[in-house]
């Protein structure tokens, strides 16, 4: 035990002392934070000003004026108007020269940034299905608002001209569009992006610890084989102690990293309103039961996969040789990412349930499903909880089996230089 502890300390120090560790520990969340904060900051700056809008009205029914009046209801955060109509140009539809020069003038205003956009309301607009909006770039929000406002105005106009003897406002009220809000059974409002990004974040955390540190482990085994120091080591500790020491030492390094990330994440989350980050993404699923499952799956997954990496390292002589073996592990871990769309839509389909209970897929698949299905309803009556517990047991048993096999192969493999063992040879080592 004491010797294993010495191995643990060295492996931990070797990783943590490296510059790449410090860079990774701060750069990764920095990049993630940037990805969340920068758009927020940009979004904060841009619409700070009132957008200038012009209207060319070829229809002659004061539609331009009505539109200008209607969009006054949109306000900025500081309650100043979101849009300012700089001009309503009533032009004759027959005078194409006038229209042409008008458009040219407005275009040049847009180019010189004196105008955000202008709308062209065509002749007999109410019988048309489209209105033109000219701008250098379009914001989703503005287009949506304008579409809504002009639709309402034109619907009103159509109603007036029809023979239906009804109050325009009440018809508009009757035909108003309804917004669909998606909620999970627990009553939490969760939209697609929350589920999708939330699931991916947790899957990627498991993936990065398992693959990232698994590969560090594998390389250190290969390096010790190549530098022939392995034999000195196993003359001091048993092969199993060495392997276990490496797995635990690197596991602690990865936990250090994740812990720092969580601290940074919580920090960003608590300042989210200042930074104008969408709270639903940052605040995803801080549910204690979910976090408990996540930690169990992350640790078990790490042990299972890094043990596999130790196995690969012990039978390979170079990184290059090892790459062939890494591929299937990567695929197994990333399965939920490839199937994300399907898993999110059908988290309870027999195929997805089966996949999430196949040993090497379980950690990431189950976390993905838990993130979708859990909501707030974490009780044993929720089948996903039973399945997750089953998943933990399956992963635990698989991990024990993987450790058993690896311990057998490792002690023979680390002293084999030059050639890689064939599969029958591996089986023989396991039977020793």
């Amino acid at each position, binding site marked *: 035990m004491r*010797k294993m502890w010495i191995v643990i300390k060295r492996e931990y120090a070797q990783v943590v002392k490296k510059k790449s560790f410090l860079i990774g520990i701060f750069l990764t969340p920095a990049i993630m934070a940037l990805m969340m904060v920068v758009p927020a900051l940009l979004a904060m700056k841009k619409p700070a000003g009132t957008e200038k809008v012009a209207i060319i009205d070829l229809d002659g029914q004061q539609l331009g004026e009505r539109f200008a009046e209607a969009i006054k209801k949109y306000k900025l955060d500081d309650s100043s108007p979101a849009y300012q109509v700089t001009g309503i140009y009533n032009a004759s539809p027959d005078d194409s020269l006038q229209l042409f020069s008008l458009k040219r003038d407005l275009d040049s205003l847009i180019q010189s940034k004196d105008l955000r956009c202008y709308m062209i309301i065509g002749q007999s607009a109410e019988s048309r299905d489209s209105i033109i909006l000219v701008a250098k770039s379009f914001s989703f929000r503005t287009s949506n608002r304008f579409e809504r406002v002009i639709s309402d105005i034109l619907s009103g106009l159509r109603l007036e001209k029809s023979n239906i003897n009804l109050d325009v406002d009440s018809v508009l009220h009757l035909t108003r569009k309804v917004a669909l809000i998606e909620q999970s059974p627990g009553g939490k409002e969760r939209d697609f992006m929350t589920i999708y990004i939330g699931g991916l974040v947790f899957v990627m955390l498991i993936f990065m610890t398992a693959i990232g540190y698994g590969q560090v482990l594998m390389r250190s085994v290969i390096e010790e084989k190549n530098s022939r120091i392995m*034999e*000195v080591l196993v*003359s*001091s*500790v048993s092969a199993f102690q060495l392997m276990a020491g490496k797995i635990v030492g690197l596991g602690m390094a990865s936990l250090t990293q994740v812990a720092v990330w969580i601290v940074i994440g919580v920090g960003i989350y608590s300042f989210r309103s200042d930074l104008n980050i969408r709270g639903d993404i940052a605040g995803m699923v801080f549910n204690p039961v979910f976090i408990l499952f996540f930690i169990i799956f992350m640790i078990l997954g790490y042990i299972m996969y890094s043990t596999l990496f130790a196995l690969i390292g012990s039978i390979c002589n170079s990184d290059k040789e090892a790459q062939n073996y890494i591929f299937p592990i990567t695929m197994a871990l990333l399965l939920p990412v490839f199937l994300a769309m399907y898993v999110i839509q059908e988290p309870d389909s027999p195929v997805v349930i089966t996949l999430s209970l196949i040993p090497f897929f379980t950690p990431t698949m189950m976390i993905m499903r838990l993130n979708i299905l859990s909501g707030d309803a974490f009780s044993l009556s929720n089948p996903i909880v039973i399945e997750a517990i089953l998943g933990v047991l399956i992963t635990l048993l698989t991990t024990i089996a993987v450790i058993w096999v690896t311990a057998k192969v490792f002690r023979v493999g680390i002293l084999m230089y030059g050639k890689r063992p064939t599969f029958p040879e591996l089986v023989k080592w396991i039977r020793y």
Partner: protein
Amino acid sequence: MNEYLRLEKITKAYDGKIAVDQLSLVVPKGAIYGMLGPNGAGKTTTIRMIMDIIAPDTGEIIVEGKKVNQDFKDRVGYLPEERGLYKKMTLLEVITYLAEMKGLTRQDAVKKIDGWLEKMSLGEYKNRKVEELSKGMQQKLQFITTLIHDPDLIILDELFSGLDPINIELVKGILLDEKRAGKTILFSTHVMEQAEKLCDYICLINRGKLVIDGRLSEVKSRFGKNSIQVELEGDSAFVKAIPGVENVTEFNNYVELRLSPAADSQEVLRQISEKVKVKRFQLMEPSLYHIFIDVARAKPEDFTAPEGASHA
């Protein structure tokens, strides 16, 4: 003879090929014990079994009357045949780490390091990375890591491989110091000449089996034969025909003649000097190399030949 280490009929087979076959040995306490044999004789496998790196299929390894266990590892200094250290660690870090793995506390290790580095004239490299050292320096460093924890038993696999002549002398001096301090030293080599100068006891192993073992002087008198070295001018081909000469080994500037037990060396000298000018004539102790060839009926190709030698 005070026994330190005893192997009892240990056997190890890989894939049906027997590497070590019913091998029994006794290494006396405080002795320098040479395990000799050609490449592939089973020396490394035997040593790995002593170190408990691999387990024997059958047989037992007994140290001071007890079966070996994990604690035994702390009392052994082991230099494997293939040398290597962590290249990215500093000398201080590597030595401390390996010493801690042998049960030394960090403080004790750090205390001892300076003395050893001085002894190996590596003092100025203490905080440099291993990869910055030359090959020869790395070997000295590895030697320090083998001995830093003051082991009772020192096991050196292919001790002389890759060592330059200066380091060989350095290492020999240190091993003799260790011997004086009462340590038991077991080393393997296929270079017989070096072994002869260092060992008290030897064993010869061939194809996994013990061929001879015992005190070096006894082995020599029991199995040795007459041999002479002659340095002469001109063609030496004729010496084979001289009566009493059994075997001729030609080296770059001398020939070694093995004589039949009844032959008279003075008569051989007379016959040679009739034909060519003799620059040097020396009666030799029987060499282990020839004893081995005789007794084990090993083929000379089994050995990496001593430098400069060709076999007639």
